[in-house]
């Protein structure tokens, strides 16, 4: 009797899990099937197979270039964030500054409270005065500023977990501060740096509002903004183009994830002590 109940329980839980999985898998499935469908709709169906959608997106004057723009902006921001956050986190972890933790939490708090739409007007004003509107640099600087506090916070954890005796040992052997950074600190916290880089790229890659406001010139717009312009003549979202471009646009991020994951084994530590 209990055996039957056990089997029924197993079946019930499998069905429930399958339903939950399907709920999350459907959008992915749509993304995989719609680009190859001659007449995509918002439902998932077996596609009438065609590659016309890809031809159409390649004909769009801004589509391919926008992916290049995304790479420039995301790559630039990630590089800037990793370098600055690593230096700041190292200093904050090793030098005793009065009120260090308070400063860090305040930065983190402000960066997460005063964000997005709230900061948009002053940021635009600032960018205009500095002649940074319509430049990649403007976008890179602005998004980096938003990402830095959290990046410093996460990296400081990695730095704190690295014993100071490593550096002291190297110092006694005569290593210079730059050598210590290159030979010891960077290799030891490399998984942390990779985490921050991936996180920064993913953030900028999907970012829309800042880029939309700071860039007027469609030649410089990233993919996330160009995606917003893919309409039919009737003013409806052009689903075949939207789905095709979405697929193309997500590929680089997936590849990056796979690369970093195979290299470092992906562990997203966040601000949590290991």
């Amino acid at each position, binding site marked *: 009797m209990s055996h039957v109940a056990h089997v029924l329980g197993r079946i019930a839980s499998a069905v429930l899990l399958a339903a939950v999985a399907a709920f999350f898998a459907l959008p992915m499935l749509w993304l995989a099937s719609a680009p190859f469908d001659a007449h995509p709709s918002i439902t998932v169906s077996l596609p009438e197979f065609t590659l016309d959608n890809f031809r159409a997106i390649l004909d769009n004057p801004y589509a391919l270039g926008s992916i290049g723009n995304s790479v420039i902006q995301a790559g630039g921001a990630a590089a800037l964030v990793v370098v600055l956050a690593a230096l700041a986190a190292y200093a904050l972890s090793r030098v*005793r500054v009065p009120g260090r933790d308070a400063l860090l939490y305040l930065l983190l708090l402000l960066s997460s409270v005063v964000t997005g739409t709230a900061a948009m007007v002053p940021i635009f004003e600032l960018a205009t005065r500095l002649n940074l509107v319509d430049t990649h640099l403007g976008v890179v600087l602005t998004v980096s500023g938003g990402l830095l506090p959290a990046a410093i916070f996460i990296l400081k954890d990695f730095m704190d977990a690295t*014993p100071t*005796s*490593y550096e*002291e*040992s*190297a*110092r*006694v*052997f*005569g*290593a*210079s501060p730059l*050598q210590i950074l290159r*030979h*010891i600190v960077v*290799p*030891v916290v*490399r998984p942390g740096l990779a985490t921050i880089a991936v996180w920064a790229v993913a953030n900028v890659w999907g970012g829309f509002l800042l880029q939309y406001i700071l860039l007027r010139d469609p030649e410089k717009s990233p993919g996330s903004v160009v995606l917003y312009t893919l309409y039919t003549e009737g003013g409806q979202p052009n689903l075949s183009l939207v789905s095709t471009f979405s697929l193309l646009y997500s590929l680089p991020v997936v590849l990056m994830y796979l690369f970093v994951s195979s290299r470092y084994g992906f562990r997203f530590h966040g601000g949590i002590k290991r």
Partner: protein
Amino acid sequence: MISVHGLTKVFPGGVRALDSLDLDIGEGEFFALLGPSGCGKTTLLRSIAGLETPTSGRIGIGGTDVTTLAPGRRDVAMVFQDYALFPHMDVAANIAYPLRIRKTPRARREARAAEVADRLSLTGLLGRRPGQLSGGQQQRVALARAVACRPRVFLFDEPLSNLDARLRLEARTFLKRLQDELGVTTVFVTHDQGEALALAHRIAVMDAGRIVQVGTPAEIFHRPATTFVASFIGSTPMNLLPGRAGDGVLHVAGAALPAPGDLPEGEPIVYGVRPEYTDLSATRRDDGFPGEVAVLENLGATTLVTLEGPDHLVQAVVGEGREPAVGTAAWAVPRRGRALVYRDGRLAGQA
């Protein structure tokens, strides 16, 4: 070889870790800095290494004043308590790291690493990462790295404390032999008096940022300069009993004992005798501390006996088969010439 003059270190916040400290360490000496935690011994070692900047005072190594010199230019090698092996480098790269900093050609430093590894029986482990090594092997790699750079001075911070008890004895013998063969001046920090007595040629006992006594292990063990050193040194703590001098004898815990010369009458004193130099008598003796056998602790070949008197505890070590029964009365008799008399906490004479 190493000379320290008037060294003072005050940490931000006002903690005085070193208090106007003087010390001279000879060429080729194996020197121990011994003391309880917080006594400043590690700060002293780190100051010699250059990792701490002294508030005032001077440090010389081999005749040159190195007080303001960067750690890397003092020609010292330090082994840290946690070994500080770089986790992303294999054993060979770790051992060769000091040579890499000195821009030794790759072939030369690989040869040197192999040579040192051979000497410390690490040859089979050269390709491993520190994480794949046992505690004892990690310690040997850390030693090898220090040996590889041929410094004038070795500095060891608690070199044995991260090893388990059994391994620690093996490593102790190994370390002593290594220092003996290399003949390099070595300063090490420890809180374990047994380690200091076993390894060092000379020991400096430290307390509260000052050196209380410097001497050979035998001197420190037999004639501790203060009651602090007396209670700190020895695997079983020394019996320290308050008493008073009078009529040419010492009145201590119900016993009348011969007094050393020149002790003023009526002065309070502390009478110290090691349990190892205390004999038990089953019959009443005027020169013995009376008490009832309260505890027996088996030390292997000997037994530590605790006698409980009216207002004192005395411990004595007795040989195998001579343990008294718990609850019987006994008298603890200090052996002639082995007892010490302290006045105001300082050694005043031998009795």
